[in-house]
């Protein structure tokens, strides 16, 4: 049996490990266009800040591939799949045959069409090579503009700030972390970052990124101008663009695999094409809260999906139980924050709130018919997992509803 996995990250490595647990004889091949052993991209901001090295961002032990007898083809891009003859074509001309194929290609940074955005000195933060590039460029830079006030943008901002750079974040929408938190939570996080000295502009877009003028270039100066929709011009030497991600579905073009925003899979992680599975950021699964098919580009879900794919690829048939698509934990400076499930209260839902912005403290629960649909904790994130479990398992909270917002609420409150 030949198992081929495209993508050497959370989902891919977890699948390989799982397959090996049940099949000691089969061949396992991992293909990756990145040349590195599997590292955690969640740690790239820490790498950027100099807090972690290329070694300490590895989330698997050094002997992972050897111990699991996994063949690696790193630095090679899969460019095509022939699903009829069960073959993967690589960019270097090689082909790899498979009996079972897992597409765990993750996602890539999405770059909006802005004038000047493809110039040098403009980076994304998705891969280790991006981080290496930013770090190198940061050495010669004094000012940086981060485009996008989402999770990755702010993490990048904070890392660069801690390197001593002057940082300005520009977010098009009226709040930071719009995809992950609500207005109140965002305001607390924003104040905390601004208190540190990071400038944050919201409600303004990027019109154009202009390279150094001819005059500056003559003197070997690399300065850029970032022109905002409002007319403001920000000077900087480095631009980091963090405006979201897109699933890497390009490979599926000729396969007939069903793709929406990601690869559609069933609860056995199978695509509609026989012997091809998908897992992680690239896959679309049903969200437990909304009941809808969608991407869930977060680390824990990539791990679980990778394992489920592995199990089903070796014939250990197991159903993927729906996960919560949105779960985020952040701590930019001092204020930890966690959001799970819904963060904005729909009209047909009820909310329970404690809001003490001066203490950097905020708790919000969203319920529908006494079933928890979402939560935001800012300042005190203890026992957030209990709420996540209540959301995931759709447990009615009627009996302990009045205790739900209390800090003392926890698993113990439920068992007695």
């Amino acid at each position, binding site marked *: 049996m030949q198992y081929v996995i495209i993508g050497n990250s959370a989902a891919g490595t977890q699948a390989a490990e799982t397959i090996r647990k049940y099949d000691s004889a089969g061949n396992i091949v991992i293909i990756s266009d990145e040349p590195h052993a599997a590292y*955690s991209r*969640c*740690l790239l901001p*820490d790498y950027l800040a100099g807090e*972690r090295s290329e070694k*300490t961002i*590895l*989330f*698997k*032990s*050094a002997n992972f591939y050897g111990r699991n007898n996994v063949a690696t083809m790193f630095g090679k891009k899969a460019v095509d799949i022939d699903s009829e003859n069960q073959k993967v074509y690589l960019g270097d001309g090689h082909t790899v045959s498979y009996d079972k194929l897992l597409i765990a290609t993750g996602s890539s940074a999405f770059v909006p069409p802005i004038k000047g955005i493809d110039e040098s000195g403009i980076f994304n933060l998705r891969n280790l090579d991006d981080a290496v590039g930013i770090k190198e460029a940061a050495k010669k830079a004094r000012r940086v503009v981060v485009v996008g006030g989402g999770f990755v943008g702010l993490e990048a901002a904070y890392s660069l700030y801690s390197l001593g750079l002057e940082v300005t974040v520009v977010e098009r929408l009226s709040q930071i972390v719009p995809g992950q938190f609500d207005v109140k939570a965002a305001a607390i996080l924003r104040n905390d970052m601004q208190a540190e000295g990071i400038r944050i502009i919201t409600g303004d877009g990027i019109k154009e990124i202009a390279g150094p003028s001819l005059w500056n270039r003559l003197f070997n100066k690399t300065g850029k101008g970032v022109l905002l929709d409002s007319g403001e011009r920000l000077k900087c030497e480095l631009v980091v663009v963090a405006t979201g991600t897109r699933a890497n579905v390009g490979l599926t073009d000729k396969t007939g695999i069903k793709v929406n925003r990601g690869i559609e899979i069933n609860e056995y992680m199978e695509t509609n094409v026989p012997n091809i599975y998908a897992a992680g950021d690239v896959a679309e699964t049903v969200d437990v809260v909304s009941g809808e098919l969608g991407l869930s580009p977060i*680390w*824990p879900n990539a*791990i*679980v999906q990778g*394992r489920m794919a592995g199990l089903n690829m070796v014939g250990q048939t197991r159903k993927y*139980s729906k996960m919560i698509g949105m*779960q985020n*934990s952040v*701590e930019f400076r001092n204020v*930890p924050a*966690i959001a*799970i499930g819904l963060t904005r209260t729909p009209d047909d839902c009820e909310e329970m709130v404690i809001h003490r912005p001066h203490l950097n403290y905020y708790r919000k629960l969203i319920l529908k018919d006494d079933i928890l649909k979402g939560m935001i904790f800012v300042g005190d*994130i*203890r*026992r*957030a*997992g*209990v709420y*996540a*479990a*209540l959301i*995931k*398992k759709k*447990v009615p909270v009627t*009996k302990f509803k009045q205790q739900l917002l209390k800090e*003392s609420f*926890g*698993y*113990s*409150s*439920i*068992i*007695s």
Partner: protein
Amino acid sequence: MKQIFVDIDKCTGCLTCTLACAAEHSSSKDIVGAMLEKVQPRISVEAVNGKAVPLMCRHCEEPTCVDACMTGAMQKDKETGIVSNENNDQSCIGCWMCIMACPYGAIQPNEEEGIAIKCDKCNGREVPACVESCHTGALLYVDGKTFTQEKLTKTAKALTEAS
């Protein structure tokens, strides 16, 4: 594999287990030292409707905290079954993803050191310190399969059932 079990009816809320836990995880290995070092206990005793309820990690079969860990620090040891983010090749960074994942709320943030703190079954100790210190018989260290006395409400079961 031995597990720590709680017999809630027997717990009087004396907190001896929390002190013993802190002592065991301090460098001085005694209670006074643990207080000076400000060691956080990894077991907590909560008051629920006037009743004391001890709470600690269950070292789950398929731990959601391990799945959530983005550094790879949180691991379940294949031999001992202990789930811990310490003494592994990878180190904890305090991202709190495991806290977001644990349905028991059994992992605590150590804000000062920026790492997550949890029960490690006293890593290799024959009987965990909390169990040894418990005089009421509320904490037991027994084989997982032979002990079925833990009384759980339907809700609690629903919450933590393997998915």
